[in-house]
């Protein structure tokens, strides 16, 4: 090995160590930023190490790719609004997976004939996973952005079709693994994997996106790890595995927070056959005027805000913080209750509220805040639905039975901010809205909140 190769390997080792430190820093908001600087340094070192340690024959494509990528990346980092974070993350899963898949295709073109059998297996895995994650993530991003219809797309025989496509893909994979010169089979596998990614994500509704996002995150990481096996490169294996496991842990957490299994999310097609499960909800929804609501809030001892995806669509995060501050200046104790699957990706609500300068100490997790609802005067539900649906706790027949919820119905009174009388994304009826303690305040969440703030000032 030459000196430059040693240098390159040293930068890879450094990068691996710094990546782990960076993720360790993520355990607290105070240390997280510093940790990410370490990771950025590690990445830069690895890039420089690679450019020095490999014999580069042409710089044109490298410089062009780095320049274009940096411009697009910087543009995304600076201009994407926080409310669009789920789409952006899905899109970057697609980019990461595409890079892994293309590196795999390139390796195949250049080295396929002399590749040992284990490497070929890893290569097939990398290309397959990379390709299906690319298209799957693009569909997810399209659904989140609203370019593609968000409701689950389902048809008769869908699972059978998906299963047969999957088996075809695996058959190509096995054939390619055992036959080094099967070029056509390799490219068929690539094509089928692209198609399978689409099929995998179209039946999944927007409300299940937190799980899908985490899974795609995991796949993109595993594809990168497989690239590491193909290139015998340890930093790729380490970084890819960290990403893969992070996504996997998040998927498990999200599934637990919905009391569903991963198979059920992927193949269950939630939200399609719903009507019969929630028929027996009766009663009327009580509407409340702005002034009454403001009065209740102003004279409360403790108010808990419960944000959901509606907060993001209405861009109401600043309005809720302003209202909360007014209340706090009147001596009201204000807290925020965050359900793990509120929003469209893990931690979505936390980021939005942090953007509006809500201190993170005011954000409470479900287990912490649930015991506090009985001693809370007003719970304000902002565009959340399933995560506060008491049916999950009380009605064993409900489709979301057993899903842990924020128990807002135990508060002395509940104010629900909602656009209209319709059902939520899942299509489930929510008995919370019919309870005597619940009052509905219809309208766009953002304007409702700022009107409430004005009304509180006049109390």
């Amino acid at each position: 090995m030459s000196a430059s190769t040693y240098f390159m390997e040293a930068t890879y080792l450094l990068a691996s160590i710094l990546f782990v430190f960076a993720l360790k820093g993520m355990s607290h908001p105070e240390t997280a930023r510093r940790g990410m600087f370490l990771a950025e340094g590690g990445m830069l070192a690895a890039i420089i190490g690679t450019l020095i340690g490999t014999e580069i024959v042409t710089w044109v494509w490298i410089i062009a790719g780095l320049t274009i990528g940096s411009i697009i990346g910087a543009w995304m980092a600076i201009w994407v609004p926080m409310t669009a974070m789920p789409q952006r993350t899905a899109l970057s899963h697609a980019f990461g997976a595409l890079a892994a898949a293309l590196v795999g295709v390139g390796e195949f073109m250049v080295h396929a004939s002399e590749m040992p059998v284990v490497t070929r297996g890893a290569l097939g895995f990398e290309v397959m996973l990379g390709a299906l994650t690319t298209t799957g993530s693009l569909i997810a991003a399209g659904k989140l952005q609203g370019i593609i219809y968000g409701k689950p797309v389902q048809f008769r025989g869908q699972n059978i079709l998906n299963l047969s496509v999957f088996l075809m893909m695996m058959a190509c994979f096995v054939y390619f693994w055992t036959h080094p010169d099967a070029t056509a089979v390799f490219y068929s596998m690539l094509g089928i994997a692209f198609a399978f990614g689409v099929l995998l994500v179209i039946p999944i509704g927007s409300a299940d996106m937190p799980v899908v996002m985490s899974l795609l995150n995991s796949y993109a990481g595993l594809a990168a790890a497989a690239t590491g096996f193909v290139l015998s490169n340890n930093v790729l294996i380490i970084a890819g595995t960290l990403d893969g496991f992070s996504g996997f842990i998040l998927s498990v957490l999200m599934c637990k927070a919905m009391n569903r299994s991963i198979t059920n999310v992927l193949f269950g097609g939630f939200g399609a056959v719903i009507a019969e499960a929630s028929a027996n909800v009766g009663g009327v929804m009580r509407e409340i005027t702005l002034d009454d609501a403001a009065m209740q809030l102003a004279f409360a001892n403790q108010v808990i805000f419960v944000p959901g995806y509606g907060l993001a669509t209405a861009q109401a995060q600043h309005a809720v913080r302003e209202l909360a501050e007014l209340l706090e200046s009147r001596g009201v104790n204000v807290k925020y209750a965050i359900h793990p699957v509120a929003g469209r990706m893990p931690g979505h609500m936390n980021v939005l509220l942090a953007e509006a300068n809500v201190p993170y100490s005011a954000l409470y997790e479900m287990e912490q805040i649930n015991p506090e609802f009985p001693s809370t005067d007003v719970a304000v539900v902002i565009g959340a639905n399933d995560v506060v649906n008491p049916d999950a706790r009380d009605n064993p027949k409900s489709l979301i039975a057993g899903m842990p919820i924020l128990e807002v119905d135990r508060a002395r009174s509940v104010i629900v901010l909602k656009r209209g009388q319709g059902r939520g994304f899942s299509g489930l009826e929510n008995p919370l809205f019919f309870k005597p303690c619940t009052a509905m305040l219809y309208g766009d969440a953002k304007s409702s909140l700022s009107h409430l703030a004005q009304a509180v000032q006049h109390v």
Partner: protein
Amino acid sequence: MNPAVLIASIYVFALAAFLGYQVISRVPPLLHTPLMSATNAISGISLIGSLVLAGAVKNQPTAHILGFIAVTAATINVVGGFGITDRMLKMFKSRNASAKAVQK
């Protein structure tokens, strides 16, 4: 890949998986979105594989083009991912810092 390298790679994979589990299960739900975008940026390390494909293969123009697309995609991930993670993490403030930010 000879068997010794393969076995070493499997060790690396297993240990990284274990380490990842230990480290990531300590990340609070508060930071799950930044975590996802951070791990995403980190897995943009496939950039180094893309660089080799784009520039170090002799007499393979198609490989260079594929490599160019891969470099572009991975760079978007690295630059965009780290950039947006930092932007998000900057927003998480303790009670004092957030009061100051609001006054500004």
